[in-house]
């Protein structure tokens, strides 16, 4: 036992607890400690004293610190009890954090909304704009057509030939404005009924002795043409004009049963 006393008082056990011994020396001490309970007891007392010293060196308020540390450790190690004070603080911090992110989120959402609203109204405006441009172009074209027609009708060389309704359509009428200088015949077909589907009006130039009809053209797109004035080329020495209803594409010779209007050119 005296040997053990001596071993204990040599100071090796303190170095063992410090971790200041080599691995071999440490293993020897461990063996001694396992063999002799008084050595183990001594080691535990040394350890206890050093631990208390270290605790004394730890900064103030270890309770609060540990609580905060434990809360940080939670993802890996669930901790049951946390002091209420620090819980409240942690919660406040969390609430403020959540509130801040919520505000940010709402702000972002708002910006996003505003942005897409602006984008939408921009697209809408662009669409409206292009529609209006189209309308303006259409109106200009119409106006241009009307001007041309007006100019054509006002021309000094024009002869106005009224065409009267015939057997199939007594109420129908039409007018031919014929310029025999530039060989253009303007057909005002305002007074003709809409042709049935699949059929088309065909305009004929007629010479009387003998009666010879010559096609000068079709009134295509009758329905879509708003002012119903059609310009056709007519280089014939016409004595009369007639309009018949023909199958789509027109016919070689007029179908006399479908003669809608007819009028003779007044002798010059």
């Amino acid at each position, binding site marked *: 036992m005296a040997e053990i006393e001596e071993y204990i008082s040599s100071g090796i056990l303190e170095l063992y607890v*410090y971790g200041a011994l080599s691995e071999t020396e440490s293993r020897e001490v461990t063996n001694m400690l396992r063999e002799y309970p008084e050595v183990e007891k001594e080691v535990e007392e040394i350890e206890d004293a050093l631990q208390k010293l270290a605790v*004394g060196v730890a900064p103030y308020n270890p309770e609060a610190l540990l609580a905060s540390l434990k809360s940080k450790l939670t993802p890996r190690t669930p901790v049951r009890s946390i002091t209420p004070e620090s819980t409240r603080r942690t919660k406040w911090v969390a609430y403020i954090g959540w509130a801040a992110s919520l505000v940010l989120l709402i702000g972002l959402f708002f910006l996003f909304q505003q942005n897409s609203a602006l984008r939408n109204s921009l697209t809408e405006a662009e669409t409206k704009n292009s529609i209006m441009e189209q309308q303006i172009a259409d109106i200009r074209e119409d106006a241009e057509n009307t001007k041309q027609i007006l100019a054509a009708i006002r021309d000094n060389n024009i002869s106005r030939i009224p065409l009267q309704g015939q057997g199939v359509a007594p109420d129908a009428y039409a007018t031919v404005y014929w310029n025999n200088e530039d060989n253009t015949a303007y057909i005002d077909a305002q007074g003709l009924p809409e042709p049935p589907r699949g059929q088309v009006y065909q305009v004929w130039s007629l010479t009387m002795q003998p009666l010879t009809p010559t096609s000068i053209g079709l009134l295509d797109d009758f329905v879509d043409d708003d002012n119903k004035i059609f310009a056709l080329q007519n280089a014939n020495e016409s004595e009369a004009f007639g309009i018949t209803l023909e199958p789509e594409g027109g016919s070689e010779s007029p179908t006399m049963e479908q003669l809608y209007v007819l009028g003779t050119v007044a002798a010059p």
Partner: protein
Amino acid sequence: MQQDGLILELQKGNQKAFERIYQLYSESTYGIIFSIIGEKDIAEEVLQDVFMKIWDNADSYDSSKGRFFTWILNIARNASIDKIRSKSFKNKKQNLAADNFVDILESKTNFSASSDAIGLKKYIEILKPVCKKLIDLLFFKGYTQKETAEELEMPLGTVKTRNRACINKLREIVGN
């Protein structure tokens, strides 16, 4: 008192055991880390790292090589020294990590809420200056016996016996 069963449970990955280990060792470990780093917030970070290492590396603790407390002590000292050698620490806290445990205890004046610490401070003053030095180097700084002998210019054997006397005094002070 070292609880071998508890350590075995920790090594098996029992989180309850980890909690208990934390309760038993975290404060003293914090003291060790703080004595090396000298900055509360950073010491706290390191403490957290140390306990993560304890959890992750529990398997590598071999009781035949030494005490569990000593094992933790080594992890804590190494982590703290790594921290003060790190660039970020050097840039920010160059002037700090200078205190020894006595300075720390002495700075715990009337602000301290812990009566234990006040009592400890009072009694630590009784320790001879050489004891303060020995305990600082061997315990807090993790010097080997040889390094301590060189630092304090005393024979190797004297380090061992003097330190023994100092620890006896400390044991009286802390009351066991």
